[in-house]
């Protein structure tokens, strides 16, 4: 098969797999895809009730802060958790038809992007409310800069996804380990608290600064809502460069692990 044909074939497969995963998520629910918009909203509401007096005292637009953190981290969580089991779950395809195994984590990553798109709608809704009712000027042109970070973020997610998906074939218990790791990771990312609240000389602070998600989230927040107005930063090219560097490194490591183990996958899956 020529390379061009191969690419076309892989594109069709990924399209079908993404369509399948987005569809099956909501197959048996009345509200259907609307859940993707409602879910982050409800989630945010719960967290807002709990945390607004603890972490959000000085932030007039704390709901927006929460929601931005939640939906970005949720994208990472669903992409990587979905990828973890994807090769094993699709063993029916892997052992019976010829196709490239890297397509499964790829489609899991891309379906999380689709869901991220839906969640973004809920973010826009909340921002709109805050602007109209609260009178905060949140919208600005810099929101378009979100598009710039997406490829870097996808590479980052895909790298982790590739790594986890092949590893899971050989070590089925990393599912539990990864869940614990994700919880830890959530707490080590300023999703609902502010990094300013942490003592900058503490060990936690230095770990936080080493966490790639911190930078993805910071850039994301800087883009999404007009922080100028609240006396905070604007999206910086320097951070964006860092995001791409990080994305590429994670992808390369993930792909190397995948390459190394992929040949054995078919007999272990």
């Amino acid at each position, binding site marked *: *098969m020529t390379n061009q044909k191969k690419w076309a*074939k892989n594109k*069709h497969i990924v399209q*079908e797999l993404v369509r399948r995963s987005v569809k099956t998520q909501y197959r048996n629910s009345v509200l259907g895809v609307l859940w993707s918009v409602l879910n982050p909203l409800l989630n945010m509401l719960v967290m807002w009730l709990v945390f607004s007096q603890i972490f959000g005292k000085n932030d007039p637009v704390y709901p927006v802060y929460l929601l931005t953190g939640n939906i970005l981290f949720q994208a990472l969580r669903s992409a990587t958790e979905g990828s973890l089991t994807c090769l094993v779950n699709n063993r*029916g395809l892997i052992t*019976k*038809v*010829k196709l490239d195994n890297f397509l499964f984590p790829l489609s899991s990553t891309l379906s999380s992007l689709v869901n991220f798109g839906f969640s973004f709608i809920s973010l826009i809704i909340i921002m709109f409310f805050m602007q109209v009712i609260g009178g905060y000027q949140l919208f600005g042109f810099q929101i378009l800069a979100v598009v710039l970070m997406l490829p870097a973020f996808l590479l980052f997610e895909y790298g982790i996804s590739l790594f986890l998906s092949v590893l899971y074939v050989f070590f089925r*218990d990393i599912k539990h*380990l990864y869940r614990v790791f994700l919880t830890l990771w959530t707490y080590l990312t300023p999703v609902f608290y502010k990094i300013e609240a942490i003592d900058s000389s503490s060990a936690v602070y230095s770990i936080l600064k080493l966490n790639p998600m911190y930078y993805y989230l910071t850039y994301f927040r800087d883009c999404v809502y007009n922080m100028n107005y609240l006396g905070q930063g604007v999206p910086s090219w320097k951070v964006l460069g860092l995001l791409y560097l990080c994305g590429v490194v994670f992808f390369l490591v993930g792909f190397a692990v995948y390459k190394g183990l992929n040949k054995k996958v078919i007999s272990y899956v």
Partner: protein
Amino acid sequence: MGQNNNDYLLKIEDLDMQFKIPALKINTLKERVVNLFKGKKIKAKTLQVLENINCEIKKGESLGVIGHNGAGKSTLLKLVAGIYSPTAGKIDLKGSVVLLNLGAGFDMEANAEENIYLNGAILGFSRKEMKKRFNSIIEFSELQDFIKMPLKNYSSGMISRLGFAIAIDVHPDLLLVDEVLSVGDANFQKKCIEKIKALKESGVSFMFVSHNIQQVKNLCEKTLWIENSKVMGYGSSQEICDKYLEYCNNKKN
């Protein structure tokens, strides 16, 4: 051979296939670590599935593959389809190939419609192209009333109908058929065999794994008989099939 050297569609040379099977299957991190401390070495057993297979299929010609269960027939088809890569030897295929075995490329949670698109994508066709073929596939499979039903509720006969209908609609150069006709009912089997004959006339080659010796005799010019991973016979279907039946009878007595 001389001038005819190049008009084969598939050529298999000195093919060997081994599976490495660990004596005890370890697939968790915990077990790995425990074993490391115990100092146990995990020995892998090597299983010879195919040994020194040689055969050839010319364009428009069909090859039957017979032998007892576990002889290595399905593995051979999977090798030709490119799902496994051989331990040693060469498989030279000049054209497109589709492997048809029960439930291949299907998602049991999805319905027939979704599976036609998924399966089509795996075979290299876009949704748009598959839409054009959709009606003829459904018509051939006679599953009009079950389009929206998840495949997990299908009978094995219905699944094989769907698989067969898709595979014949995409016209590969070589169609590998692994035991799928045997689960269909008599009417559908007859319909399939007629379709296979028509496809053969239009230049499609087949490779059949079947336990229905009469069918192999009827449809294939040549037959490959595998027993215990080795070739027991290769040649004209008439001759090889008779030998095989004789062998089976002798074994019984």
